[in-house]
């Protein structure tokens, strides 16, 4: 782990020193390692509560509110450091984006490379879309709406399984097994279909609760 160039204290984050409060050179940017900004090693397993505590602790070091009357370069540094932290948190906190980043980081295929989904899966996607359309067109108490609630539960369960599979792939990859990243990418692409449908169901439900 690095040390602060000003006070030599051990750094928890490369963005700022928790001991002397020094803002360090911005290492942000979209290509920066989000794990490194949080003082973590790139790995799938992540303690969400710990991550949030780190976010709050590090934000206290770099937030522009604490540099409002500082010099222009310091204000600028605080803005970049804070933005880098927020972007990194977004990547890490969300399972799908964390998996996406890790697959890329470990040299796996990108989203476009594993685009082809099994035909059976695509047929299922078509079924979900039909159910959604039917629910949209029906009255609030219609059976189509009940069906959509069941579908949401089913897809939620499927999503959980997909991420269990992804977790297993990352564990195997970490143990040195080869050929884990391409299937992880396929799982992730399936998760995107599930998420898109789940988001549409959620939107429909908010719209429904608004209309009743």
């Amino acid at each position: 782990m690095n040390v602060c160039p000003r006070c030599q204290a051990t750094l928890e984050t490369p963005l700022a020193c928790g001991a002397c409060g020094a803002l360090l050179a911005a290492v942000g940017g979209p290509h920066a390692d989000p794990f490194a900004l949080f003082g973590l090693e790139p790995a799938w397993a992540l303690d969400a509560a710990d991550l949030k505590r780190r976010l709050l602790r590090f934000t206290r070091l770099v937030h522009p509110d604490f540099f409002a009357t500082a010099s222009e370069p310091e204000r600028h540094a605080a803005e970049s450091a804070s933005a880098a932290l927020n972007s990194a948190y977004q990547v890490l906190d969300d399972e799908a984006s964390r998996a996406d980043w890790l697959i890329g980081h470990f040299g796996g295929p990108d989203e476009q490379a594993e685009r082809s989904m099994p035909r059976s899966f695509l047929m299922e996607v078509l079924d979900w879309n039909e159910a959604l359309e039917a629910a949209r067109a029906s009255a609030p108490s219609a059976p189509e709406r009940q069906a959509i609630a069941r579908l949401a539960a089913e897809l939620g369960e499927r999503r959980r399984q997909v991420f269990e599979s992804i977790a297993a792939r990352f564990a195997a990859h970490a143990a040195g097994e080869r050929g884990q990243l391409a299937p992880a990418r396929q799982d992730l692409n399936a998760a995107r279909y599930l998420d898109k449908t789940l988001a549409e169901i959620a939107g429909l439900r908010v719209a429904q609760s608004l209309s009743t």
Partner: protein
Amino acid sequence: MAFIELTVLNNASRQTAIGIDLGTTNSLGAMWVDGRPIVLHPEGENGYVPSALHFAEDGRILVGRAARDRALIDPQHTLFSIKRFMGRGLADVARDIESVPCPVSESPTGVIQFEMRGKAYTPQELSALILMKVHDMACRALGGKETTRVVITVPAYFDDAQRNATRDAARLAGLDVLRIVNEPTAASLAYGLDQRKQGNVAVFDLGGGTFDVSILSIEEGVFRVLSTHGDTHLGGDDIDRALVAVALEDLARTLPAPALRDPAFRQLLRLAAEKCKIELSSAPEAEMHVTLPESGMQWRRRFSREEFDALAAPLVERTIDACRQALADAKLERNAIDEVVLVGGATRIPLVRKRVEQFFARKPHTELNPDEVVALGAAVQAHVLAGGTRDILLMDVTPLSLGMETMGGAVAKVILRNSTIPCSASEGFTTYADNQTGIDFHVVQGERELARDCRTLGRFKLSGIPPMPAGMARVAVKFHIDANGVLTVSAKEESTGLSARIEVAPMNGLTDAQVESMLKASYEHARADFDQSRLANLKVEIGTMLRATERGLRNYRAELDKETLRDLEDAMKSAREAAERDDVNALQKARDVFERAAEPLAAVMMDSVAKQALTGKRLDEV
């Protein structure tokens, strides 16, 4: 000595900043004093500055209470609710324009201009006048202690153009804006909820003209906004309008149509409705009454609380819908909310309180005056920003997604709504023709799929890309939304590392050059005002000097030598002539020459006074 004073002064001003709630109806300043936020009001005044402007016949502009009072007599020259026009174009405010009594136009950059008594004013300039009034009020309350550092609140739903307009207004008012803060977020700070170790808060802000609801989580003194939702056209004014509509329907039977349309009469009705609404918040029934113009006849109508609730119910339900949406965005259930904070005058309406309490199943906080909560919260944030404490931290979000128009008019989202700010995102671009050196793009804000349904933030022109074959250039455009919620854009060509140039054409906003020139004009204006008062003072002074010298000459002419006397009489003549004209510099010079020429006479007079005193004469006999 001077140095020490300066240090003390600097320390004092470093620790202080004023929080200003620049409201649609009223504006208010507050500050952190002795461990808590207080509203700043001079002795005997309540500190509220009605957000109104009156353009007097003599060219003066009245601001605040004086302006609001003039509205009844001269509504044609009085403007209200300027905030609605901040950062907007004519097309955005068609509904609000109806209530504006003067001609309204749009500048080439899409800034609205109000034409009053032959002059055009932008909303930025008018808001600057209101800010100056609030600042002046605050400084008087502080006993003349000056600080130009301020935090200004805006509705959470304000987009980039509206935030920039607010910032420009503050610049025009000569204020140093430490931060633009969202109103509901500021409100959450006012109640000292940071004392809570952990919890979720809903801030329900129903003002005169706008509605916002924000969901925040509090953890170890950090306030993190999870989601925010709202309606820019929903507020207590809508309830006034509903009451006015009832009145008009009734009055249409007795009054001719032109009388119903008369702006002064409409204003009377509006005030009567507002009064009735306020009374109904504490009484089971209230009367709305107006004196009809010309006939002098009284129109009266009693409203029961039930009738009123029926009128208000549709509006209240819209606010509850927004609460549902905000909860969904925050991924929280209703019962996860631990505290509910009410903000805005319209939350005094019992029906509003009842529905909010029902919905969240929590008794909302009402201990603080809902009209003051935002200013008080802004004062807490101002205290943090001025370096007063590190115990409280606000992590706010951007309320609207930021995107770019792609081929075919769709929007590619670059930063999603409810992202914590500050935040950055980069997008890559390339060229589609050989040796192409520029790319145009269109940045929009909003949630809709098509660019034309979103709000244009600006059209950017990227230029200075080094000539290379099509598709070779790798231009990275970086978007940064800062802690004020304001966007900046920068670009770099990655293969060469060259910075590309970005030109921004602000939409419904002032360019920096325009703000500069307005500032210059206001300095020149101030300079002219200053000259005017100096001129008047010099004239008075010369008049006094002339009278004193004439009296002195009557008694002591004989004691002055010929040359001195001639110089003095010449100087008096020049001073008299200069006083006839309005040249400050000439007047100042004539005064100085006169003063020097009169010195011998003054000496003679002093001498004589001393002698008389020695010989025992009383001074008044001299």
